[in-house]
């Protein structure tokens, strides 16, 4: 489809939805509703929204959906743990019992939902060893932010917040960790990687002090490298009086094998929209499930679900609670989907998922490194990787000038979703990070490998076809320059119209 912008599809007078006329009895009592709005506050000019019929709106957005690859192809998008979003869960979430709930309903009327929230809390406790989970954080980053807020509250109670103003993380931890720590008001100390692919214990010791508020770290990292000294790290930070937060974004490969609490962590985070089978929706709604030890529980945001006398009740947060990181319970429908995933998988299924994702990644790693132009990060590390491996196209780029961006744009021509590169800053040049997960069949993984091999082959033989990709998509490669130019960027149609006017 050569689909126009919706703002250009308007024809005055058309209606997409209409509302009932105001009941005559109502009008009889209250009069003209316009007069019920103070004159100074009335809208005088109508918003320039499109006027369209209902079927035309439907068709427009159906067309846009068809121009979205999503998981229709093969998507091994690293760090996002692509897995099956069971359609049963979507059907359940569409039911009135889920969709038509108001968060302020009396708990008596929410027993089904509260039971599921409570049951998922218990399941995540079992998976992590933590003592309590909350689901208010509306994404993984929001859970990291929750931890930063709890860190404030914890040290404030001890009268140490003014002096404990540093949070330590690593360069391979997700950007949300330093970013939320900074937003919460902390100084951020970032440890660099060393030879083995992780910062040394010594490096950590050199930055830990009485100013240390917390450690926020993930493990394994996005290169599939597990820090074997992590228990030691936790001990060091604890001894200095800091808290330890485990960003469990990369939980998929270690599910059933380790528990964050057993490693000593005070808190951890699971992404229900990734690891626990919830859909991503292009970027939320999402849930960062935040779990912590009993010692940190008094700081958790309310409301908390408790089971008492056989019924589920809501309690406000404790006196020391950080209040809220988001209004109400969080994205409840995603909590239900995650619960459904846990039940569908069971303990054995979860263990199998970890096994399969690590097996598939190592299979991929071996096959991909056979491709000319592809190298593996830290090639000197002989060990099997966890559920992801970071690769580099540095050789390819040096040999052919073809970049990871070119390859991304070419991949989609094969119906394969573009790979993830790496979070900033790039540790390795021209990085890319696929993650096979447990859902994709071996055949799909083989196809993905073959596509990359084909593109690398093209890069060496007919690089132009890669550099000018995509060829089979609704739009060509975008022009990046206007995006950074205040005189040309246009985040809305009206801005676009104003800026193009002189031309």
């Amino acid at each position, binding site marked *: 489809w050569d689909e126009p912008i919706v703002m250009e599809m308007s024809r005055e007078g058309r209606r997409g939805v209409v509302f009932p006329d105001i009941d005559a009895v109502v009008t009889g009592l209250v009069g003209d509703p316009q007069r019920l709005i103070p004159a100074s506050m009335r809208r005088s000019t109508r918003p320039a929204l499109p006027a369209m019929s209902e079927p035309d709106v439907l068709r427009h957005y159906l067309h846009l959906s068809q121009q979205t690859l999503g998981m229709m192809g093969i998507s091994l998008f690293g760090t996002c743990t692509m897995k099956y979003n069971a359609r049963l869960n979507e059907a359940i979430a569409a039911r009135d019992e889920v969709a038509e709930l108001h968060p302020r309903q009396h708990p008596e009327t929410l027993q*089904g939902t509260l039971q599921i929230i409570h049951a998922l809390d218990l399941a995540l406790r079992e998976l992590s060893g933590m003592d309590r989970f909350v689901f208010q954080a509306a994404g993984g980053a929001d859970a990291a932010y929750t931890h930063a807020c709890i860190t404030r509250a914890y040290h404030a109670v001890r009268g140490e917040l003014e002096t404990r103003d540093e949070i330590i993380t690593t360069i391979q931890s997700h*950007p949300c960790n330093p970013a939320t720590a900074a937003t919460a*008001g902390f100084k951020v100390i970032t440890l660099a990687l060393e030879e083995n692919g992780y910062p040394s214990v010594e490096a950590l010791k050199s930055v830990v002090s009485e100013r240390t508020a917390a450690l926020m770290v993930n493990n394994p990292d996005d290169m599939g490298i597990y820090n074997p000294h992590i228990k030691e790290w936790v001990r060091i930070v604890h001894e200095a009086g800091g808290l330890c937060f485990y960003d469990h974004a990369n939980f998929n490969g270690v599910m059933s094998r380790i528990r964050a609490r057993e490693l000593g962590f005070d808190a951890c985070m699971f992404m229900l929209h990734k690891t626990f089978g919830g859909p991503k929706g292009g970027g939320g709604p999402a849930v960062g499930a935040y779990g912590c030890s009993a010692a940190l529980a008094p700081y958790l945001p309310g409301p908390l679900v408790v089971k008492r006398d056989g019924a589920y009740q809501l309690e406000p947060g404790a006196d020391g609670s950080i209040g809220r990181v988001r209004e109400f319970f969080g994205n409840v429908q995603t909590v239900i989907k995650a619960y459904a995933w846990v039940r569908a998988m*069971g303990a054995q299924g979860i263990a199998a998922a970890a096994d399969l994702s690590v097996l598939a990644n190592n299979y991929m790693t071996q096959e991909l490194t056979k491709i000319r132009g592809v190298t593996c990060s830290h090639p000197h590390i002989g*060990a099997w990787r966890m559920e992801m491996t970071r690769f580099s196209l540095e050789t390819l780029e040096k040999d052919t000038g073809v970049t990871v961006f070119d390859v991304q744009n070419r991949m989609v021509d094969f119906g394969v979703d573009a790979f993830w590169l790496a979070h900033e800053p790039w540790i390795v040049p021209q990085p890319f990070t696929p993650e096979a997960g447990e859902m994709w069949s071996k055949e799909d993984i083989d196809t993905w490998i073959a596509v990359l091999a084909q593109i690398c082959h093209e890069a060496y033989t007919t690089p132009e076809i890669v550099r000018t990709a995509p060829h089979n998509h609704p739009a060509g490669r975008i022009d990046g320059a206007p995006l950074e130019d205040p005189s040309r960027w246009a985040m809305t149609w009206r801005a676009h119209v104003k800026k193009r006017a002189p031309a």
Partner: protein
Amino acid sequence: MRNQPHPFMANTVSAIQQEMLDAIGAKTIAELFEQIPADHRTQAPLDLPPALASEPALRRHLIDTLSQNRHCESDLSFLGGGCWRHHVPAVCDEIVRRSEFLTSVWGTPSSDQGRYQAWFEFCSQLGELVDCDLVGLPVYTWGCAAGHALRMASRLNGRRTVLVPEAIDPERLLVIRNYCEPPEMAQHLSIVPMRFDPATGRIDLADAAAKISSDTAAVYIEMPNYLGIIEEDAQRLAELAHAAGAEMIVGVDPISLGVLAPPPSYGADIVVGTTQPLGVHMFGGGGLGGFIATRDEERYAREYPTLLVSLTGTSRPGEIGFGLSLAEQSSYGSRENGKDWTGNSVYLWAIANAVYLSLMGPQGFDDVGRLITAQAHYAAQRLASLPGVTVPLSGSFFKEFVVDFSKTGRSVASINHALRERGIFGGHDLSADLPALGQSALYCVTELHERRDIDRLIDTLSEILNHDH
């Protein structure tokens, strides 16, 4: 046992696993975990409820469990206060449930052109509704949007005091408090409440004026406010804020904007608000979303914490494409040096919002605004006619209003309990959070109420209040 074939996992077949193991030269899957030291490994096997790998069994379990809920389709609800039951057109559901949108992750602007365009159309249409040229992709909620906006203002003018209405939703205020950081932090923003006038329900202008100073980073008001009241002094407040060099931030319920003036028209610099009323189900609060919008000025643009989608050209002449603007300033681009943080948000709801805005058009917002206004006033007048029941605030209101039951001698809790027994969810109990209002509740009336629903409420309340208690 781990090879029990599971419908979600194509490779839970022993032969496939053996092929892969053979290919890499490993004997067992267990050995692939060599990186994890032995003393890191858990000794206690997972103890989870029994697996329900069978879809029919899981479906039955979920439905049985959730059937214990009562909900606003089966019961008559007058709850509001930050989450509202508005009409969700069937086309909105149809679109957001499309597998392509539901399961998309990121892709490239070319492969996911449709989703980028839908996002751009969300920003473009919302921009028309709020009269702003610059709109970011959504944030988690209204409260989060307000929190970010206050921090944007502080970064813009380097000041550290923000004025916020006294009568604000406690849920939202708790969110904002976290964004403003505790006093111990170096970047702490001090929150100064603007007193509310218990007669009108509006901000006490004199009080606010006295508090606005050269230290004020921003004045934040809501339209309508938590109690449903239209802040008629908004323009005056904006003038005072601007005169003091502060940013004027307005939080708005966008469904009001067919009848209420867009915030920039009375001086808003930054507009925030909720997206939930625009075509998203309540989901017990899981339908919330927030937005941030401003003038298209570089000084604002460079402070957005959100991702920004801009229209641009492509390698094909004349073709329109979409890309991320100013990605470098996000936390993805600059980690702790970025503008606050971003991450997964509610981008799927942005698509629902875009569909909703296209369906509504200008006339739809006009109509729904008038319908809500008329019905809410009808409900208020009928309620005020009940013995002992008053609608105490004199300010003009939209959609929500305070009902005071003090003179009935009954608590809101007991009245709501009685209503609940009769299939009605009464208004949100304000007595604990705003004791100055006595035994008051916040009632919400939308376009989905019909007159008979309001009449049923009145009849039921009459009956309850006539009972001995």
